[in-house]
């Protein structure tokens, strides 16, 4: 038997495709966010609130990833924002090649901001770079305070963590300070915003941060 050295990252092909996407986004000067959470934590609600909050002050597009249906893309289009639905069938995450194929039909030229709403899942999407500039993870307070500890890889890789449904925290018996502490322990450098898409609490802080990130996109894209 002959032993042949390989030394190749298993996700190499995805990372090459992600690097190409990142070049496309940089040349279009589009800030790209990979938005991830468990199912039902409020990704689409946050997008709707963000679209309303930005109120046309930057040109925005959305790519939606779901196993089935284009209901989420319809919710976004109803607010006048161009959106493109990727249905993954049985695949539990988006990968960089799916995004590259979407970009052929949904060009980003002219967009200041593209949000890619990943499949609702706190596990696999953590491993797949899509070429984004920022990773935003939503954790719903109603899911319990221990989620960041149970899914540490996802939270570790986030740039921003939004603690959503803060209006339900007390009713769910969740201490928001404990939830935030758990986020900090797996990711000391994350920016954390407690928000409620339902009541609007905390959203202005997130929106202000996002406006600044859109303005600073040439710097974020140079990293």
């Amino acid at each position, binding site marked *: 038997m*002959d032993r042949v050295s390989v030394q*190749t990252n*298993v996700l190499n092909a995805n990372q090459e495709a992600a690097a190409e996407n990142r070049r496309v986004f940089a040349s279009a000067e589009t800030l790209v966010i990979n938005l991830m959470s468990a199912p039902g934590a409020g990704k689409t609600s946050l997008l709707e609130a963000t679209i309303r909050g930005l109120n046309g002050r930057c040109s925005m597009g959305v790519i939606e990833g779901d196993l089935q249906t284009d209901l989420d893309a319809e919710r976004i289009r109803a607010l006048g924002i161009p959106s493109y639905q990727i249905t993954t069938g049985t695949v*539990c995450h988006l990968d960089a090649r799916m995004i590259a194929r979407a970009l052929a039909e949904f060009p980003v030229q002219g967009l200041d901001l593209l949000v890619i709403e990943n499949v609702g*899942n706190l596990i696999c999407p953590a491993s797949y770079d899509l070429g984004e500039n920022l990773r935003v993870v939503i954790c719903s307070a109603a899911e319990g305070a221990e989620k960041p500890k149970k899914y*540490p890889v996802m939270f570790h890789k986030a740039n921003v963590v939004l603690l959503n449904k803060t209006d339900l925290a007390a009713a769910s018996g969740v201490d928001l300070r404990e939830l935030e502490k758990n986020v900090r322990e*797996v990711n*000391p450098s994350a920016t954390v915003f407690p928000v409620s898409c339902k009541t609007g609490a905390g959203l202005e802080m997130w929106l202000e941060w996002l406006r600044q990130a859109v303005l600073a996109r040439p710097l974020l894209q140079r990293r």
Partner: protein
Amino acid sequence: MVESYSSPMHEISIAQNIIEIAEAKAREENSRCIQVIKIRLGEFTTIVREALEFAFEIARQETLAQTAKLEIEIVPMSVRCAVCGPVTDPMREVCLLCPRCGLPLEVVAGEELQVEYIEVESEAERV
């Protein structure tokens, strides 16, 4: 460390990637039969060993790796503080704040997902 009820599809696409990388290398070596694929799998990834082993059994069908053995070396997570150095305190759960000074810790190992080598049938074995 990571809950293990993830969809098996996740590990299936990982298993397919492993096989594609191994097959490309085997073709470079003009081999049609891969006998061993050795990978290094970090503890601080989202991949569950048992699920990957199961997925590999399915994904290897009708490939050059159809009789190959998947050898998995688990790489433990290790962390380091820029001020205090390596942290050896056992971690009951992931906490990336230095237990001595509280500064953020750097993950220095445990994120690996790498094909190390393959073993293929040698010229002499091929009749």
